[in-house]
């Protein structure tokens, strides 16, 4: 899952990005509104954490511009806590709202929920045959037994599970699993898919040659 953090305060941006990375998100950062908007348009993020008071263009403007073309889930992060501000934020296309100061664990829970809901998944658990994926604590169990997956493998499983029944192209996988600083030209994805099949069963993921991957329903 790939997340964009738009925040001009370096200490805060660093903490949020690091925390999300430690939860195995691919995280991109932007220090001002213009860069943020540019990145948000360029990549299809799973969620955007957006500060409102930004240099260049502010969060409101960024949101308005982004909503013309993208439906990316946006979580607003701001020090303005009045009801009017929150209502305004949500009405203008934000999906969630968190006031500063905030707890990082709440932030990541909200980000998880945002990503889940944007895929039409209300519950934290996704059940595919005998495999149960718990998106809250990022664990996977097969026939009741926990399966040990690496962070990358888990992210890939979650991405495919949230989009199950749909073909997920290789470029989509690259977009959502790796952040802008990683070299995505390797054939890492095939290695991960091979390992996932080994751990969750041969038929868990189907490869469509030249197109991508799919978890059949």
């Amino acid at each position: 899952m790939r997340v964009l953090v738009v925040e001009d305060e370096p200490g805060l941006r660093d903490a949020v990005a690091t925390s999300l990375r430690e939860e195995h998100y691919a995280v991109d950062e932007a220090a001002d509104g213009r860069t943020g908007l540019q990145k948000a348009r360029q990549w299809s993020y799973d969620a955007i954490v957006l500060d409102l008071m930004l240099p260049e263009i502010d969060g409101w403007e960024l949101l308005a511009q982004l909503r013309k073309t993208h439906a990316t889930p946006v979580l607003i992060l701001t020090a303005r806590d009045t009801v009017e501000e929150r209502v305004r934020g949500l009405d203008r296309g934000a999906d969630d709202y968190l006031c500063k100061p905030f707890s990082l664990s709440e932030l990541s829970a909200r980000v998880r929920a945002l990503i889940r809901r944007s895929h039409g998944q209300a519950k934290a658990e996704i059940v595919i045959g005998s495999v149960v994926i718990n998106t809250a604590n990022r664990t996977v169990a097969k026939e009741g037994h926990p399966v040990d997956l690496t962070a990358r493998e888990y992210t890939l499983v979650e991405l495919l599970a949230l989009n199950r029944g749909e073909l997920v192209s290789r470029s989509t996988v690259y977009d959502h699993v790796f952040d802008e600083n990683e070299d995505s030209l390797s054939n890492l994805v095939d290695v991960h898919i091979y390992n996932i099949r080994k751990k969750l069963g041969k038929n868990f993921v189907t490869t469509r040659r030249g197109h991508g991957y799919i978890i059949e329903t």
Partner: protein
Amino acid sequence: MAISSKPNLARDLSVDGRPQPAHDSPRRSLPQSIAWRLQMWHAAILVSVVVGLCTAWFLQARRARLNEIDAELTSAARVLDGSLRGFDLRGFDTTERPLNELLAADDHLRLSLPRELADRRDNQPEPYFGIWLEDGRQLKSERLPEGFSLKPSQSQPEAPERDGPNAILREVRIVGPAGSLILVGRDIGSEIAELNRLALRIAAFAMLILAAGLCGGWWLARSVLRPIAAISDAASRFSAADMSPRINVVETESELGQLATILNDAFDRVERSFDQQRQFAADASHELRTPLAVIQSQIELALKRERTSEEYIKTLTTCSSASERLSDLVESLLTLARLDFSSQPTERVSVRVDLVAARCIDLMRPVAQQAEVNLRSELEPAIVSGDPKQIERVIFNLLKNSVAYNRPHGEAVLSVAIVDSSVELILRDNGIGISESDLAHVAERFYRADKARSRVHGGSGLGLSIAQGIIANHGGTMQIASQLDQGTTVTVHLPLASTLSDNHSNDRDASNPKGATTPHTTPLQAGQ
């Protein structure tokens, strides 16, 4: 383009932020209501005027009528008197000659009322008359009312009226020849009745006038007071929770219209100052929350798992600078709150502005060197009366801006001089300047023309507000003139304290340990 320092609105209008319960106007009892009192006075005056006028009217009409009657009767009596003068009345009064003799003479004397008097309209009773000799014997009479007696004549010879048995009589008596008495009278019942009818008509007319006047007065009072009701209604609905009520001003020229306009302006000012306060509180909480969020998230992140010592150091460094920012901010907010609270500097000693400026330059020099900004100063000795720490803060804040919003190889020149008996402090730089649209706002709290830049410099957006507040507190003014990409000039004027020769008294109350008030008469050239 320049803006001048103006006192903060919030200080002029001490409005507390608590929402106040809607103020109900006390229920006015009737006698206290202005409309009621107005109406009472109006009624009293109207009643007395109408009653007075109508009474006068009636009395006038009555007197005219009676005078007419009296004239008529008098002229009749004079005719009788004239006729009587044809007689030789001598001797009759002494009863020497019998009355019959005289009466016999009447045949050709014709002692009777003139034609025009006798020929009256049908409804008017014919007048009566009587002539008496001095000794009281009646010479002649015609149609005297029954039971007539001359008696009241003694006490009031001109008693005009008497009540007859079934009539009101009016009489005129004159003294004829040889002490004789001539009396002419008639029944004036019909005239009296006519006068009574007139009185009734006048009364009805007065009632009509009164009714119309009172109704009109009530309507007038109500319509005059209706705007007051609207004013009090708007004023009582106006509260911290709802500042929208305004008085609907219809007649702008009338006194109440002017009052309403004045009140609306006052409401506007209160609302503006409230909005400023609200904005300030929102900005302050935003500014306070940001470093707090940094500290909280950095600590939470660090505690999530075991970290390397480098990571801990990084976390602590970030937290430390955030908490430094917090304490700076709190300090600035407290200063502002104090400035808002009192309009006078807390301390008043003689302050050598030039020495304070020199110290600020020295403090600022390392920062300026890092930013490659050349700091220069042209300082003349100048003394103002005030708080040395606050004045240092003003100069330091201004210098900080000059360096922060400058560019490499730029320069900032600080000069202190006495101009027109006030201390003039000018800080001129050739930095990035301020755009015209920003210039109007730079002294507003938390206003930052370029947030990214000030974040790098750690500015809170309060420096100029504080400087402006302190200068206003010291009775001075501040002007900022700027042109984008050309530079900024800040001019501060402070009132000059009692002259340099007045050092002794200054020394006594100067308890400044830093020695900023030490008299120093040689022109000081600090900096290069």
